[in-house]
């Protein structure tokens, strides 16, 4: 069981900045995220896009914003459970919560801060009628262990980086790799596109374009895919079909936690502290809603800051505290580091 002061669900910008604000109050944080890397949408959807409305940054790339936040929170030694989705929550008698992930990792904290953005990122599933029947029986939306495909016949569909990169990677492992995409052009890094072209030229992979997979064949396990190209349908035998059409966010299991939901978001008390209808559970950043809500990173930072003050009072109801400016108090990390303003030097002129 992982124990912490504030359990943050979602490691996007808001969740990451919460670690900093909590750290100033000597509260430890642990973050859970369904994605394998921190940064949320900034890392998953638009790492190379500039953001222009972060105060004091006339322009910053989303990926750089995440890097900077990671650096800023480093002294507070946050814990991470990545690649696992927060699945269930249980309220204990002492007022704390246990959150269990999709992989069964358990976390306990007196305060839970949901900073889940638009939700956890789930694979986009192509609209093939029989696809659900074969999920887990040869259809996988995420490649967890490439060795699983050793000496197997694999069909991948999609036109982005992940489709190309996995084709290239699996070409050395699988018996055969076939890539199917709806058009001839691929949206991927130039060297990936060139590498795939080279593998196609040398016969190591097969690329079928412009084409679409319209049906799946097999009894229990998948045995083949039906590929439609120029209105002609052909069946290609395979052991695995991996559709890689990117990820889209879904509120997911959080929607069943007994929280008040409105407009696909969690209702919070914005006049006070961004607490939800369940005391001890807060919602901050894009995942919450209240009158006048704006889904902006800078608003998430503000919400995180106020939420941490409230969390402190909840954890230490009898302690008095006033907010301190970092310019005055400096930043004292849990790792023993201390940053502070240089002291003024007084020297007489004689």
């Amino acid at each position: 069981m992982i124990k912490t002061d504030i359990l943050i669900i979602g490691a996007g910008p808001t969740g990451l900045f919460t670690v900093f604000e909590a750290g100033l109050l000597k509260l430890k944080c642990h973050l859970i995220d369904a994605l394998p890397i921190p940064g949320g949408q900034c890392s998953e959807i638009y790492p190379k896009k500039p953001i222009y409305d972060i105060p004091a940054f006339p322009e910053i790339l989303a990926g750089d914003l995440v890097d900077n936040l990671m650096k800023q929170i480093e002294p507070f030694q946050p814990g991470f459970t990545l690649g696992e989705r927060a699945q269930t929550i249980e309220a204990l008698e002492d007022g704390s919560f246990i959150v269990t992930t999709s992989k069964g990792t358990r976390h306990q904290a007196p305060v839970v801060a949901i900073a889940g953005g638009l939700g956890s990122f789930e694979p986009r599933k192509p609209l093939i009628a029989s696809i659900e029947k074969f999920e887990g029986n040869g259809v996988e939306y995420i490649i967890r262990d490439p060795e699983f495909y050793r000496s197997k016949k694999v069909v991948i569909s999609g036109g982005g980086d992940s489709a190309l990169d996995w084709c290239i990677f699996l070409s050395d492992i699988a018996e055969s790799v076939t890539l199917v995409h709806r058009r001839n052009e691929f949206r991927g890094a130039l060297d990936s596109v060139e590498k795939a072209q080279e593998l196609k030229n040398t016969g190591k992979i097969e690329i079928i374009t412009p084409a679409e997979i319209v049906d799946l064949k097999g009894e229990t396990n998948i045995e083949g895919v039906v590929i439609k190209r120029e209105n002609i349908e052909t069946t290609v035998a395979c052991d695995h079909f991996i559709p890689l059409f990117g990820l889209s966010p879904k509120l997911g299991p959080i929607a069943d936690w007994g929280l008040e939901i409105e407009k696909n978001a969690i209702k919070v008390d914005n006049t006070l502290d961004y607490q939800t209808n369940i005391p001890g559970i807060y919602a901050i950043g894009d995942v919450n809603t209240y009158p006048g809500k704006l889904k902006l990173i800078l608003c998430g930072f503000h919400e995180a800051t106020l939420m941490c003050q409230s969390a402190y009072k909840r954890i230490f109801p009898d302690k008095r505290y006033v907010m301190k400016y970092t310019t005055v108090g400096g930043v004292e990390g849990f790792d023993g580091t201390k940053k502070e303003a240089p002291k003024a030097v007084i020297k007489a002129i004689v």
Partner: protein
Amino acid sequence: MIDITITIIDRQGVSHEINAPTDMNMNLMEVVKSYELAPEGTIGVCGGMAMCASCQCYVESGHQLPVISDDEEAMLSEAFNVKTTSRLGCQIQMNPEMDGLKVELAPEC
């Protein structure tokens, strides 16, 4: 300020004739959001960067639309329920030439 009138058929098939400003740098996806014609979180998920297909729509009127960019074309090539009339709403800017535009929102997926 010039307002234009456009028609949007929502995902339930209900037609809405609405006014859209042309001086606020708004695109079609944002107009749909401003009138709450699709539930929050089901449209404009990527914020309007042509990086998701949640604002896909079918253009029913014969308007001269902006040329489709590589980003938009790539996104549509990976989207579902795509038709020959498909466009991403976030890539259609509201300007006086768009007066009378008629679109249907593609199903959520």
